[in-house]
């Protein structure tokens, strides 16, 4: 029995330390990444992965079953709500025309130009030509 407890201790310690390390790395990335969207990408990592690791490690070391249940419930809430919040913030940033870094390859929320005559081209090729050329260049 004590062997199982020791293994649980080691696993919980590794989980908590890695969760804290992910929080620190994401906080450094908030300062170093060039873009609102990239910073949002790095800021949702401690909110999902870091909290999952830390709270799983704490649930392995919890003193009672009710505490462990509350910790798992907190993990589930975070995993559900954090992507939704990140999506809302990204939409809001794009709607308020936040600046895009020069390394951005594709902007899929950019409004499509009107496709008038060429019905044979599907949506994917229209999107591709919309992002590689200006709006008046794709007119046939």
């Amino acid at each position, binding site marked *: 029995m004590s062997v199982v407890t020791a293994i649980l201790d080691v696993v*919980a310690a590794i989980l908590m330390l890695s969760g804290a390390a992910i929080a620190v790395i994401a*906080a450094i990335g908030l300062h170093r990444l060039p873009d609102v969207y990239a910073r949002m990408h790095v800021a949702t990592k401690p909110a999902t992965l870091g*909290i999952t690791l830390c709270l799983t490690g*704490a649930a392995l*070391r919890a003193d009672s079953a009710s*505490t462990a249940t509350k910790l798992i419930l907190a993990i589930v809430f975070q995993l559900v709500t954090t992507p939704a919040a*990140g999506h809302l913030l990204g939409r*809001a940033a794009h709607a*308020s*025309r936040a600046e895009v870094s020069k390394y951005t390859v594709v902007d899929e929320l950019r409004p499509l130009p009107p496709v008038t005559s060429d019905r044979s081209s599907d949506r994917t090729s229209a999107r591709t030509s919309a992002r590689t050329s200006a709006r008046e260049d794709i007119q046939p």
Partner: protein
Amino acid sequence: MSIVTAISLGLLALAAAICFAKAIRRSSIIDRAIALDGVVSAIICGIAIAAVRNGSGVSIDIALVGGLLGFLTLSTIARYVGRRGL
């Protein structure tokens, strides 16, 4: 286990301090919201680890409520920014 929780709490305090420095520097409102969400997630992790350190789980409810309030805060700020611009 006491040493491990101490190191983890120190790392989380460092992460919260770095995120808070990002929040109080001159940046846009979305950057501030993201940085404060980083502070909130560090606080939630810290509450769980402090519960392990103290050996009592009475403060886990605060972590639950904190997570849900963080989501409410972010969605409210997103709605405000999306309606009015930066």
